[in-house]
């Protein structure tokens, strides 16, 4: 299967601190890739480089950022504008051929049609995140990046979010998400990228990660992962 996105040797420094060390990987259509790792591992930096928000110090990407959908961790929305107005603004800025059709499609896809005229500032956190994701999907991107998409959601909203992501992936969109929650990676990712201190320690399926991590005498997978990282000096 041809790669939808390839990263080669992505490196990033913040002053003397190394945030990413020559990260390389390739993604294929319909994959759900979970980027996992402790705080400061480089997850947000990696997603920001893939999204075109940050420029890497070295390395390259196979696809321009404008062809990639991006959903930042904090909803990037204008709270004084309505749901439809936010979608329309970004559809126009993305210079979509038919902005109104794109808005209507995203309202329907995210089940926000009933809330189209409501100001975003009055929406719940879950609905705001849906609008946030809808904006990321406006250009019907082949690759969608989500930075900790479930961080501010309650369990019910989280469940709905993962259903939505599963649907996107079933339609062929490559979804890349970062998370602190190892259980989410186990449940929803088809592939895992394990980062620590800017280094890509592992890439493979959740099952392969479980094997790689091993037993280590720990009670659950999260504890095993912590032991795995400790053993490698992270």
């Amino acid at each position, binding site marked *: 299967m041809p790669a939808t996105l390839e990263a080669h040797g992505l490196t990033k420094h913040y002053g003397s601190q190394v945030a990413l060390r020559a990260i390389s990987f390739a993604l294929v259509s319909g994959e759900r890739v979970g980027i996992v790792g402790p705080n400061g591992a480089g997850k947000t930096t990696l997603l*920001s480089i893939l*999204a*075109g*928000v*940050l420029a890497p110090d070295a390395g390259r990407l196979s696809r*321009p*950022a*404008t062809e990639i959908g*991006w959903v*930042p961790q*904090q*909803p*990037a*929305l*204008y*709270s*004084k*504008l309505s749901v439809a*107005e936010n979608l329309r*603004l*970004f559809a*126009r*800025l*993305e210079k979509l051929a038919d902005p109104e059709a794109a808005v209507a499609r995203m309202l329907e896809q995210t089940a926000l049609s009933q809330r189209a005229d409501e*100001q975003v500032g009055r929406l719940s956190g879950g609905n705001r995140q849906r609008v946030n994701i809808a*904006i990321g999907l406006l250009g019907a991107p082949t690759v969608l990046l989500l930075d900790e998409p479930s961080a501010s959601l309650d369990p019910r909203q989280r469940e709905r979010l993962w259903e939505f992501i599963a649907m996107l992936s079933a339609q062929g969109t490559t979804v890349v998400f970062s998370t602190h929650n190892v259980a989410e990676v186990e449940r929803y990712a088809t592939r895992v990228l394990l980062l620590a201190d800017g280094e890509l320690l592992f890439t493979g399926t959740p099952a392969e990660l479980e094997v790689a991590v091993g037993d280590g005498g720990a009670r659950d997978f999260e504890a095993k992962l912590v032991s795995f990282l400790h053993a490698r000096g992270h």
Partner: protein
Amino acid sequence: MRWLLVKDLQILRRSPLLTGLLVVYPVVIALMIGFALSSPPGKPRVAFFDQVPRGHGTIALGGQRVNVGHYAGALLSSVSAIRVSSRAQAIATVRSGQALAAVIIPADLPQQIQSLVTQGIGSPSVEVILNSRDPIERQVVDQAITARLNQVEQSVSKQLLRVAIADLQQVLSGGQVHALGQTVHLLGLRNARAIVAGTLAGLPRGSPLRPALSQVISFADLAIQGLSFASPALGTIGTPLAVHQIQLAGATTPTDAYAAAIAVIVSLMFVGVLLASGLLALVRSENAYARLVRGLVSPGRLLAEKIALSAVCATLVTLVMAALVSLFVSLDWSRLPLWVLSLGVGAIAFAALGVTIGAVAREVSAASLLAFLIALPVAFVALVPANAVSGGLKTVLDVIAFVFPFKASLQAVSNAFSGTAPGAGLPLVHLLALALAFGILARVALVRFAR
């Protein structure tokens, strides 16, 4: 950029308090300035206790009488006088706040003046009582009362001089003197000299009276010469110097137009700086910056959009304000294109300063606070007269006034309002340079936005 403008206008429309303030504030300021400039200055309320008995306000000078009480009337006409009947009542009136000051004329003031004029003894005085706790108000009232008393003093002096000059003229040339109900003919020095000279001419050559009469004629010549000089000299004592001003800077802006320009520029600054800083900081507060600059809008265009929108709003608001002020103050409407140009360029410079503040502060409330903290001192510094301070402080103030757009905007707009020197060209170039400099600073500061 069009869609960003539409979006910002939608946001402003949905912020009625902010938008209302942006419109109402300059209008209210304009009306206040207009009324203040068009209203005549108020007369200070002064309690007045005149202890001089009626009919005893005159002093005798030579053969004439001067009514000192007449000048008290002049003092009363220039203040809002509250007549009181005792010193205690005068003090109570000031203490209660009914009057800002009290003036007490002692009963023997005419005698004091008489003594000074005729014998050179004494120092006539009136009593002024003040009770203001506010130092500025105290200074204003003190200056107002003192200035009016000085006017009265000068009027009395002039009248006394007129009487003295008339008496001198009679000594010199003679005339009629009315005293004790009788008219007396006064010979005068010139006539006396003529009589002596005639007598001298009729005497024989060897007369022993000749040397004595010649001495009298010489003395009379010297006295006539001296007194002839003294009369005009005394006449000029009241106003010894006339001041003729020459403005090297050409015609200056009329005070009213200058005050109007200051009010307009203060509003231009607040609307331009606050709006631009708030609009830019809002982009980050809403987390939208990173989403916008990943290929949708360049940081430079984002800044340009905020500057343009803020400058247009500030220009429109201050044009309305200037139009309202012109109802009260004479502004040159034939220079309207220059009004628009000066306000527009000034607004661009202020908006560029605003986006720099917004980029540094990165948060709406912090940006608004910082904008206020910077704008107010900048305005004060720019309004300090050039020679009010000296040395290093003057240099510092000059530099601050130069690197912020207030002073240049004021120069451009006051010229636009009245067409007086200095011209608007140099300030406009200065403002464009400042706009460019602040734009570059804002672009550099935006690097922190993505973090």
